[in-house]
């Protein structure tokens, strides 16, 4: 099969979407041709849009933005709809990998609905979506094996997703939290991430709180 991995993160360097795609790729690599796309760096070319119309599977990974899809990725999806209507010949299955900054993976449900609605407009099959809460944690868990510790839920879901991609199956979407206490996540996010990053930029907490 031809599988497209679309990294829909707006970040130019390290992204949680890239981490999630990196977890999935080894599970689906065998026997399939995999091509990765990065619409954040520059818009896709007409040739790339046409390639996507000839895929068997699209995996779209992105962070939740304002309860929905990041605008640059959404712009690509709008353009891709026209290509799909004009050029698609075979069945294409779409899978989504979403991560959100809030703790609850459930908050990804609207972005999933939007992807499902997009599939309906394009005539594509929506296969399954995964939604990981507290996505920013993933960048700090590089040494934790997938399926262990805070990534336990994600590991299990990722195995299921890989199986569904192999067989081009439709399955129930899964939205989940990290296997980590919420209070500890909130404390760490506040002190070790937001305040620590601001401090590196020469700012204090009162600066973060400023009003204009």
């Amino acid at each position: 099969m031809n599988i497209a991995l679309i990294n829909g993160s707006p970040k130019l360097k390290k992204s949680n979407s890239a981490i999630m795609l990196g977890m999935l790729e080894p599970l689906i690599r065998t026997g399939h041709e995999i091509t990765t796309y990065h619409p954040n760096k520059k818009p896709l070319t007409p040739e790339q849009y046409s390639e996507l119309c000839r895929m068997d599977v699209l995996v779209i990974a992105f962070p939740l933005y304002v309860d929905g899809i990041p605008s640059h990725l959404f712009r690509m999806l709008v353009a891709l709809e026209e290509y799909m209507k004009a050029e698609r010949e075979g069945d294409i299955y779409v899978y989504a990998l979403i991560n959100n900054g809030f703790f609850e993976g459930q908050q990804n449900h609207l972005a999933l609905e939007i992807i499902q609605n997009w599939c309906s407009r394009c005539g594509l099959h929506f296969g399954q979506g995964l939604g990981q809460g507290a996505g920013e944690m993933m960048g700090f868990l590089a040494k934790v094996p997938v399926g262990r510790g805070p990534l336990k839920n994600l590991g299990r879901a990722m195995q299921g997703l890989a199986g569904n991609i192999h067989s081009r199956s439709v399955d129930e979407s899964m939205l989940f939290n990290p296997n980590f206490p919420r209070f500890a996540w909130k404390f760490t996010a506040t002190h070790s991430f937001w305040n620590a990053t601001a401090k590196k930029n020469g700012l204090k907490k009162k600066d973060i709180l400023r009003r204009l």
Partner: protein
Amino acid sequence: MKMIFHDLGQHEYAAWVEAPQEEVTVISDNGTIRHCTGCFGCWVRTPGVCVLKDGYHNMGELLSKCDELVIISKCEYGSYSPFILNVLNRSISYVLPYFSTQSGETHHRKRYDHQFALSVHFYGEDLTEAEMETARKLVAANSVNLYSIGNNVYFHNSLQAVKEVLA
């Protein structure tokens, strides 16, 4: 102050309005907007202001001075159009990076002691029930995250219909 975000062509919108209205700030697509790059600069480098200086960098501050926000957007798959999404993505400095928990869900804390009324006018010729339902839920979720005073969602089958309501 009232704010209007719209995704119409600038000339098209200008034809709607007979004279520029004072106390109304209109945010439209002048072709220069850049997409949010997820750098968190508006929270931890230049708090309250986006680091991308393209004329859309002060959306959070503008929202803090707005009493009523009206959004006019094409409805695409139950979402806003790309330009309106872009503006909303660039508006996150309106809230703080810190988290609060409300009704068991995490949200960002308020930066300002301020609230605005939110109305969204979606247009589109053949919107499905599923798309309209998603759009209603999306606006409701945005309303919670932006601390708006409630929200109103309207659907119109043409731009002309939006004009008749708003002009």
